[in-house]
């Protein structure tokens, strides 16, 4: 008997485990478990312990299962005719006890499992239970207390998940705008922005992306430096800095001069190498417009908004100190920093001036390339200046957009369309708003004979071709947008124009046809067309024309955006 054997030879423990084992089969067929047990054992065979516990073997002699020992087979509770001892009986009873206990344990376990399942179901259905959007009355209760940021954050995340699966997750009777209004309010509270800025971001990005953007704008971007190739090589510089105790890496594969600083024991802006002009502190985003401009040695280049001189010095280094660079900025205080940087980095071919950008080209014209890193609202560099969150308003954005249009007109007019090597204008801002980026570019396409060309940057998102009710020219796809939460760079925008001719696309009445392109004299209908091949205009008029167009673009803008799309869509 299995039980007998285990009772005598093997410890209780194994008996318990055995009964545990058997209790499994117990669940299936309580009466038969002895059967199955003895069945199992021959198959397991091998180990001496098993052998000792092997009943059938013993009695049948060979391990083969026979029914000769049927007498053994005991219905639970019945004592067979085998002559059970007291011992046996006791053991049996014990086993029965253990059996029973095992069965109880089993049953308990089952019950537990069942309950756990039910709870899981309940929880799941709880989760599935809709997120409750607080009503106005409930929110009014919050007026007294300070809502903890974690609660705000939870609510924000819940609303975002509801919005992404709106059909199923919405509460009855609450509209989408209820959710978005609450989201705007919560984001504004949580991150500390003006509500109109949050509304602006939510218009541009999906709620989930907007949250990522806002999160990224709270954290600083990595510190980056640019090697000054006029004085040092990147490898040597990296070695020298590592020796000083600065942990760094090459910036990435698209830049041959950038270095990313991880950590440093010494101030990066005060090393002897810095003072000797071997490198310049410059963010990765700021390198992109100059890479796009790609000036060549010997050209005439204008940097319209140069201070504090990071891009100007990069331009000079790409030109190998040959040619002429005019570095202009409106504010003389900031321009002094440019002068200092120019000297520190050993730049020789730059003249630093202090003029209003829109005074070009009257002051000086006929450049091969112009870089306009326009003054902007700075929505892409909030991580550097948190005060932008509360200082910038939509009104500010409108104002900077107006200024940018004015400056870009001046920039395009200052470029020589017939330049042998250039004719390029690069427009860049450190903002992510469409009003300051695509809209300004679109305005330009309608005002001057320029076309967009590929920005020449190996990454970045394409510019928008449509936004809300506005539609932009398809070539805006070639402009590039950078986001802090996608590229780990400052929010930035770069657009590269090529000037086709010096013609202006409006003022149809007073055009003077001094020169004409081969495509022949197209008439005033060209005003709306965004394509090239139009006649040249008199260069001398550019000065006055700049003023005229600057005043007009209010109406011209509407013309371009609404009508131009139709014709462009047809023509493009």
């Amino acid at each position, binding site marked *: 008997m299995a039980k007998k054997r285990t009772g005598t030879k093997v410890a209780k423990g194994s008996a318990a485990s055995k009964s545990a084992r058997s209790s499994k089969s117990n669940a299936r067929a309580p009466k038969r478990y002895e059967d199955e047990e003895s069945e199992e054992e021959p198959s397991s065979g091998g180990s001496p312990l098993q052998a000792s516990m092997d009943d059938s073997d013993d009695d049948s002699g060979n391990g083969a299962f026979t029914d000769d020992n049927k007498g053994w087979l005991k219905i639970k509770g019945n004592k067979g005719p085998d002559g059970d001892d007291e011992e046996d009986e006791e053991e049996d009873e014990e086993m029965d006890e253990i059996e029973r206990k095992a069965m109880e344990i089993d049953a308990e376990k089952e019950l537990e499992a069942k309950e756990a399942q039910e709870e899981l179901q309940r929880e799941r259905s709880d989760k599935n239970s809709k997120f409750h959007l607080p009503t106005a009355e409930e929110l009014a209760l919050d007026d007294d207390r300070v809502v903890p940021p974690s609660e705000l954050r939870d609510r924000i995340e819940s609303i975002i998940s509801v919005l992404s699966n709106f059909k199923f997750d919405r509460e009855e009777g609450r509209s989408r705008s209820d959710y978005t209004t609450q989201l705007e309010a919560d984001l504004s509270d949580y991150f500390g922005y003006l509500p109109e800025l949050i509304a602006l971001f939510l218009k541009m990005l999906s709620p989930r992306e907007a949250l990522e953007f806002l999160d990224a704008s709270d954290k600083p971007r990595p510190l980056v430096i640019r090697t000054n190739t006029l004085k040092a090589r990147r490898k040597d510089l990296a070695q*020298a800095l590592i020796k000083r105790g600065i942990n760094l890496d090459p910036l990435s594969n698209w830049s041959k001069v950038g270095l990313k600083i991880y950590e440093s024991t010494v101030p990066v*802006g*005060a090393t*002897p*190498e810095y*003072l*000797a*002009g*071997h490198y310049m502190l410059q963010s990765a985003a700021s390198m992109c417009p100059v890479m796009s401009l790609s000036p060549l040695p010997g050209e*005439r280049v204008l940097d319209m908004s140069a201070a504090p001189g990071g891009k100007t010095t990069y331009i000079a280094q790409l030109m190998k100190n040959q*040619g*002429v660079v*005019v570095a202009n900025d409106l504010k*003389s205080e900031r*321009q*002094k*920093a*440019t*002068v*200092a940087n*120019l*000297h*520190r980095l*050993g730049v*020789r*071919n*730059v*003249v*630093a*001036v*202090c*003029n209003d950008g829109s005074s070009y080209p009257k*002051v*000086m014209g006929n450049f091969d390339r112009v870089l306009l890193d326009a003054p902007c609202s700075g929505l892409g560099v909030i991580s550097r200046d948190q005060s932008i969150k509360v200082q910038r308003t939509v009104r500010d954005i409108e104002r900077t957009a107006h200024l940018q249009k004015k400056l870009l007109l001046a920039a395009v007019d200052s470029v020589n369309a017939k330049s042998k090597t250039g004719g390029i204008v690069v427009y860049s801002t450190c903002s992510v708003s469409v009003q300051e980026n695509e809209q300004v570019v679109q305005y330009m396409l309608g005002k001057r004979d320029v076309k967009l060309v590929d920005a020449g940057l190996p990454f970045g998102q394409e510019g928008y071709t449509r936004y809300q009710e506005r539609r932009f020219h398809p070539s805006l796809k070639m402009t590039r947008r950078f986001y802090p939460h996608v590229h780990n760079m400052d929010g930035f925008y770069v657009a590269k124009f090529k000037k086709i001719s010096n013609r202006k696309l409006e003022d149809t009445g007073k055009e003077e046809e001094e020169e004409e392109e081969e495509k022949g004299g197209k008439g005033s209908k060209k005003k709306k067309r965004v394509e090239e091949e139009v006649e040249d205009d008199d260069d001398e008029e550019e000065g006055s024309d700049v003023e005229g167009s600057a005043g007009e673009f209010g109406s011209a803008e509407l013309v371009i955006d609404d009508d131009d799309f139709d014709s462009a869509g047809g023509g493009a």
Partner: protein
Amino acid sequence: MRPLTIDELKKLFEKLSKYIGKNVEHLLKNPSEAHAFRLQKDRVYYVSESLIKASQSLPSETILSLGTCFGKFTKSKNFKLHITALDVISKYALYKVWVKPSSEMQFLYGNNVPKSGLGRMTDEVPQYGGVVVLSMNDVPLGFGVAAQSTGQCKELEPTGNVVLHQGDVGEYLRTEDDIY
């Protein structure tokens, strides 16, 4: 913006030749392109011809800087050399002093170079001769005047001054305003 007068040129060259001697000619007859000196608001700029031509149309009140600023004329009409001229001067310098890494930072703070910080020195530097100070990696750090001639410097005690400080690149941080 105007060219320098004869007197001003004389003073300028006197100062420069203390550091670069006869190489002053090289400054004017630059092999790659002809350069000239121009004066703007008492400051002397070393500019290439093409840059001068390009800047002629710009209204001179608005020009802050042209090419490389070498220094300025003081109220008493003496010429003071600025650190911004270092790149050009160190190329043509006659007398050089190499400073040990231990004394680098001290010099960059505006102190003189003691004997203990002296790495190397060109031979036959006259006393009070103009000297360009370099780090051991040949990176120009600034300029000064030799306190003693080379021979005497060899016998100097460790605390004695070898170079009297006149200008160093640390000024880009310390006196940013003066650079313009």
